[in-house]
């Protein structure tokens, strides 16, 4: 049995032990992992027109074919991350101004009125107020548009770090 085969079997058996996220909120969050920026998907640069042009251009600078391919991939990958960085920065999650600015305590009579036709108890009104207060806390914790765009782009730091390290390595190895 080769080393690679043994390693792949070990990886598979270890993967069976992995349970992934356990809580409902964890499952919900991880189910959206690849949907926000698409940077976790494997890109296919080699079949793009830009890639070939870039490789030809770099080859004229005296790099070997292998290094040219590496640099072109690194450069295109870095651009992909930075484009996504810009998109994330310019389209943050919108602020729900109604929830953020509502006066929960002042709205209790309205809740009471809303719930009265169904014969609600005071406990129900309190629960409704507590629910809105918790939504408001969550909304306020996220902050305004500037805070949101900063925390959204902050999540892309690791992609940027990997992309620039890969590009820099490719250029310097040439």
């Amino acid at each position, binding site marked *: 049995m080769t080393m690679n085969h043994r390693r792949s079997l070990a990886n598979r058996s270890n993967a069976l032990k992995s349970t992934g996220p356990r809580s409902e909120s964890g499952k919900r969050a991880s189910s959206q992992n690849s949907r926000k920026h698409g940077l976790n998907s494997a890109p296919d640069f080699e079949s793009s027109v830009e890639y070939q*042009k870039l490789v030809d251009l770099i080859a004229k*600078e005296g790099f070997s074919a292998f290094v040219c391919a590496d640099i072109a991939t690194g450069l295109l990958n870095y651009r992909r991350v930075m484009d996504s960085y810009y998109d994330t920065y*310019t389209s943050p999650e919108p602020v729900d*101004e109604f929830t953020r600015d509502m006066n929960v305590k002042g709205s209790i009579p309205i809740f009471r009125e809303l719930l009265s036709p169904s014969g609600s108890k005071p406990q129900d009104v309190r629960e409704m107020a507590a629910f809105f207060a918790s939504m408001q806390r969550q909304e*306020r914790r996220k*902050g305004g548009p*500037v*805070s949101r765009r*900063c925390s959204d782009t902050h999540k892309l730091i690791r992609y940027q770090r990997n992309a620039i390290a890969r590009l820099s390595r490719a*250029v310097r190895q040439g």
Partner: protein
Amino acid sequence: MLYNVHFGIYVDVAMPVEDKSKSLLPFLSSPKLLPDESEAEFQSGLQSLLSELDNPSPLAVALVSQLNESFWWIKRHTKDKELLLHEAMARLLSKAGSYSETYDNRKVSEALERYLDGRAVKDEAEWIDEILDESKLTLSDLRVRAFKDAARHIKMVDDLIHRQHQTIRHLQRSIDSIDYKSRLIKRMDLELAALESKQSVKGALTLDDEPS
């Protein structure tokens, strides 16, 4: 022949090295700027970086344009830090006193922004002063409290700026290595030419020495 290098860079490969930089400038990048940002300022930063290149090869130019973008991001994020403070100040003010029910956050935020920039009209400035009085705060007190409130997000922006610094370091090293490589190739070319000329002189001498 002109090549478009995906992010808007066009390079004339057949052109002599010293003219390449000049020819690249008009074609360089269609930058993704925000509505309130100046493209002229962006381009002038790029041109000043390009003018420092000893050997403006297509790859060096591509790396320099990434470098310029990183500097631009640092500028943006530095501005964000101030905006975060303003945002937190507005949030604190809108919660102050009885105004939490009367005025919404956005209105206070916009008025405060103009007040801090010195662009507020008399009524607006008076209104902000009134809210500050009501909440028993001075502007510097408010700023300190806002800083405390926004500390988590300010730390995030600091991380973003730090990341750009690291990126710049990587790009500088890459540019240096290309520059060194091209200088090395030039030097080897010269040495090879010198060796060849030496060899040909020697060959001529040995031919002369042979008896006819």
